[in-house]
C-alpha cells in the first residue's frame, strides 16, 4: 500500500495530503469563488465534489485516512442552509460520532475538520483549508503517527 516515493521524502519536504469533500451547492461554489477572487491558500487539498454532505459515508473518510491521507476536510452548507433541506444535519450528526470514535482510536483529531462554508464564503473556505493544513503539519505525517 505504501508508495516508495512516500518513504523517501524527508520530513522537511513533506507536504500533507489532504482530501476534501465539498458539497456542490455551498462549499464547492465557495472554493470556486476563492479561485475567482484569487484567494491563495495551501495547495494540499484535493476536492471531491458530492451533491450534499449528506452523501458522505463515514467510510469514505476512514478509508481516506487508512489509505494515507494526512487530513480530511468535509465542507458543506451551514446548518439550515442545506440545498437538500437537511443533508448537512445528517452529516453533522455522523461527524459527532465519528469525531469521538477517532479520538478514542488514538488518531489525532487535528487531522479532520468539518467546515461550514457558504457559496459566498470563499475566505472561510480558504481559511478552513489553511487551518487544516497547519494543524496537520503540527500533527505530522499520518505515517509517522504510526511510527
Amino acid at each position: 500500500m505504501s508508495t516508495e516515493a512516500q518513504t523517501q521524502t524527508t520530513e522537511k519536504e513533506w507536504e500533507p495530503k489532504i482530501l476534501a469533500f465539498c458539497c456542490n451547492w455551498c462549499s464547492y461554489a465557495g472554493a470556486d469563488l476563492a479561485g475567482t477572487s484569487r484567494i491563495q491558500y495551501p495547495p494540499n487539498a484535493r476536492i471531491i465534489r458530492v451533491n450534499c454532505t449528506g452523501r458522505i459515508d463515514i467510510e469514505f473518510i476512514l478509508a481516506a485516512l487508512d489509505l494515507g491521507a494526512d487530513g480530511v476536510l468535509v465542507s458543506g452548507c451551514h446548518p439550515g442552509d442545506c440545498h437538500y433541506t437537511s443533508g448537512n444535519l445528517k452529516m453533522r450528526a455522523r461527524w459527532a460520532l465519528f469525531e469521538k470514535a477517532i479520538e478514542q482510536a488514538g488518531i489525532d483529531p487535528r487531522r479532520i475538520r468539518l467546515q461550514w462554508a457558504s457559496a459566498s464564503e470563499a475566505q472561510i473556505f480558504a481559511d478552513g483549508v489553511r487551518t487544516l493544513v497547519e494543524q496537520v503539519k503540527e500533527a505530522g505525517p499520518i505515517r509517522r503517527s504510526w511510527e
Partner: protein
Amino acid sequence: MLTVEKSAQKISSVKMGDPGSALVVGGGVAGMQAALDIANQGFKVFLVEKTSSIGGKMAMLDKTFPTLDCSACILTPKLSEVAHHPNIELLTYSEVKDIKGKAGDFKVKVLKKARYVDLEKCSGCGDCVPVCPTEVPNEFDQGLGFRKAIYVPFPQATPNTHTIDKRGHPACRINCPAHVNGQGFLALIREHKYDDALEIVRRSIPFPGTLGRVCPAPCEEKCERGLIDNPINIRDSHRWLADYEREQGTYTPTPVKPDKKKKVAVIGAGPAGIACAEKLAKLGYPVTVFEAREKPGGLLRYGIPEYRLPREILDEEISMVEDLGVKFKFNKKIRSVESLLEKGFSAVFLGIGAPVSSRLKVDGEDAEGVFHALEFLDRVNSGEKVEVGNYVAVIGGGNAAIDAARVAKRLGAYKVFIIYRRSRAEMPAIKSEISDAEDEGIELVLLANPVEILTMKNKVAGIKCIRMRLGEPDESGRRRPIPIPDSEFTIQLDNVIIAIGQRVGEDGPHTELKTTSWGTPVVDPITYQTSNPCVFAGGDVVTGGGLVVDAVAHGHEAAESIHRFLQGQDMFEGRPVEFKEIPSEDIPKARFPKQEKVHPKKLKPTIRVDSFKEIEQGYSEEEVLEEAGRCIECGICCECEQCVKACTREAIDHSMNDEVVELNVGAIVIATGYKLFDVSRYERLGFGIHYNVIHAMQFERLINAAGPTHGHLVRLSDGKVPKSIAFVQCVGSRDVKMGVPYCSRICCMYAIKNAVMAKEHHPDIDVTIYYTDVRSFGKGFEEFYQMAKRRFGVHFIRGRVGQIDEDPHTQDLIVSYEDIVNDRLGEARHDMVILSPGIIPAEGLEPFMKGLNLRLYEDGYIQVLDQFVDPVDSSVKGVYVCGCSDSPKDIPDSVTAGSAAAMHATIVLSKERE
C-alpha cells in the same frame, strides 16, 4: 486594434420573436421567475435587463429574512437556470426604448448597449481586470469600494462576462484635431506603463515630443478638470513620455514592410506631409517624401525658434518616421504633380504649407529694416546671421509674432514691442507664450493698429499707429477692432517685423489644381481630395496657416483617403468620426477634491533671453505622475486597450456598437423593480455628511463575504468594529411630505435581519432599532422579530429620529429621537447608524406610458386592474406586472407575483398559438 474610424456609432438592428413569445422587462428575482414560468410552458421569452447581469437587488443582499438563507446561494441556481433555459433569450445591458401594438402583437424596440466584450468568447477569467487603469466607485457595493472600467458586478453574475463601462469620449479627445486619447495615456502614466502610454499618443500623432512643446493644446481648453480647478496639462504629459523614452533610450525602430504595390508621393516634409507619410507607411505603402529644402520639418524647423523646440527632438521624431521605411528626398522641389504621377506614383499628397507672410499693405512696408515674420524666422532658423537694431516692433498677435519678438530680443534688441489691434484676450498666440514674452521684457502695445511705417532714407525710423476699440464680434467670433478717430501715435523704431498671417505661394504644384480665392487648393473637407482625384492636400496649404496638430490630423485623414482611394473603397463610409460627447453634468465632479496643477519648470527670463536654449524644462517623473493623477477620467473606460492585450481569447472589441433589437411579442411582463429612496434627502440624518451613517443596502454589502470588506463589519471612518449600532426606520417611507406616503413593506424585516446579522458577527455589539411600527407580517416574520428581541437582545425603541450629529473627534454619532412609548426626548450615542431607505418605483416606464398608455398610480407605481380579481394585470391588456413595479413587495411576494404574471401572460400567448 482600435482605429478611431471604427468607433463611429453605427446602430444595426436585429428582428426577433413572434406573437407567441413573451417579453419580460427586468431581470430581478420577479422577472426571472416570470421568465422561467413562461418558458417552462414552452413559450419563447425575451428577458431584458438594464444592467450587465440578471439577479437584481437580491444579488446584493447578504442574507434573506426570516430564514437567514445566504441570498447569493439561493439565487445562483436560479440565475443559471435562467441562463441555460432553452426558451429564454437573455438581453442584458439592454433597455426597452419604444413599444407599440396590442395584446397578441406588440412591437418592441430594445437598445442593446455595446458591452465591448464578446459574450461568446469571454470566459470570465478576469485577466483584463487587473490591467485596467480606471477605477470607479462600485455601484454593486453601493459605492463602498471600487471597481474597474471593465468589470463583472458580482462573482456569480450571469452571463458571467465582463462589461466595459464607457460613458463616452472625453472632451480633450474630441477637441484635439488629431484626437489624441488623453485620458488613455494619462491613465497608463499613472500605471507606470510609459511605453504603452506613448504608444497611445503615437496612434494619433507621430510627434509626441514636438507637439508636446509647440502645441497650443486645444485639448486642455475643454478639459473637465478645468471646471474643478485647472485643466490637466495634457501636452506636457505626452512631452514627458517622449522625453522619457529618449532618456531611457528605449526606442527601437520597427520598420514596416510595404505590402502594397502602389507608390505614394508626398510633397513637402512639414507636419502634414510627414504625418501622411507615416500613416501610409504603416498601412503598407511605399512612400517617398519630396522636400524642397535641405532638411525636413517645414515650419517646425524653419518657423519655430529653437528655444521652443530643440532641433534634436524634431530630428529624432522625423527619423522615427524614416525608420518606418518612408523615403525622403531633399532639395527636390516639385513643380508639377503631373510629373510625379507620370513617374509611377499612384497618388500624391500635397503638404507644401503656406510659407509666405501676408503683407501689411501700409506705406513703408518695403523699407530697409522691415521684416516679414516667416522670412525673418526662416533666416534665423537656417543659421543665417540676422541683425536687428535696439528698438523692434512686431505687428500681430499670433504665435509667429511672439516668436519673432522673442527671437529679436535674443538677437540683441534692447526693446521689443508687440503691436496688436485687439486686446490681449483676443491674441491667438499660446497664452503662456505671451506671458513668457512679457517676462522677457517684451512690451505689448494693444488695441493699436499701424497705419504707416515711418522711414528715413528708406530705412525704418518708427511706426505710426492708431488706437482701436472693440466693437461687435466679427465672423471669427472675435470682437471687431474699430479705429478711434484722431488717436494716432508714433513709436520710434529700428526694425519692424510684420507677423499678421501667412499665405500659400503663388507658384508650385497646387496651382495645377482648382483653387479658392485665397489660392489654396479646393479640397473635400472630409477626404482632403483635390480636384485631381489622385491628389490630396492638407495642412497649411489648405488652411492657409493653422496649427501643427491640424496639419497632422489632415495628413492622417488624407492618408486614410489615399488608402481607400487606392483600394477602391468607399471614401466616406464611417467618416468623419462621430464621437460621443459626454455631457458635463454626467461627470461626477463633486467626487474630486481640488488639487493644484503641476507647472513644469522654465529657465529664468534673465538667463533665457541670452540664448536659444530650450526654456521649458518639462516634467520630472514625480511631477508627471502627480499631474496624471489629476485626470478625472471622464469617459470611465479610456480605451487604452490594455484589456485587449491581456485577453487571450480576443474577446474584447472596443469598436462594438449598440444594437437595436426589434421584438415582436404577444405578451409583456413588467418587473422593473424598485429604487432605493435617496436618503440624503433627509439632511438632518447626516447621510453623505457623516462617515458612519450608511444605508441598509450598504450594510448588506458591508457584511457580505464577497463585499468590499470581505464581510468584516467595520466603521467606514476608522475601520474599527462598531460597539453600538442603530438602525433608523421609515427613512423615505410613510412620509407624505417627501412624496412617499406608503409603507415600503420590507424595511422592518431587513432591518431586523441586519440587526441579527450584526449580532452574529459580533455578539457584543449593542444594536438598537428606532421604529415607527414593527411590521413583521409575513410568514415566519413575527417569530423572527421575537427571536431578534428575545434571543439576540436587539433593542427596539419606538420613535422617530429627529437629528443625527457627529462627534468631530470620534466620528461617533449622536442620535436625537423621540421615544413615543415613554413620552420623552432621548439622545443616544452610536458609533454607526444604518438608515433604512424606503423604496420608490424604478425608472424606465416611459416607453410603456407613451407607446401603450400604461397607467401609473400617483406614487409612480403601475396601476393594476383590480386588486382582488386581477392583481397582476395592468391597465393595458397583455401587459402584466410583478415584483415591486406595482407596489413594494418582499422576495416571496415578488416571486409569487412573477409566477402569477407569467400565468396571465401565457393565457394570452396560448390564444395566439391556437
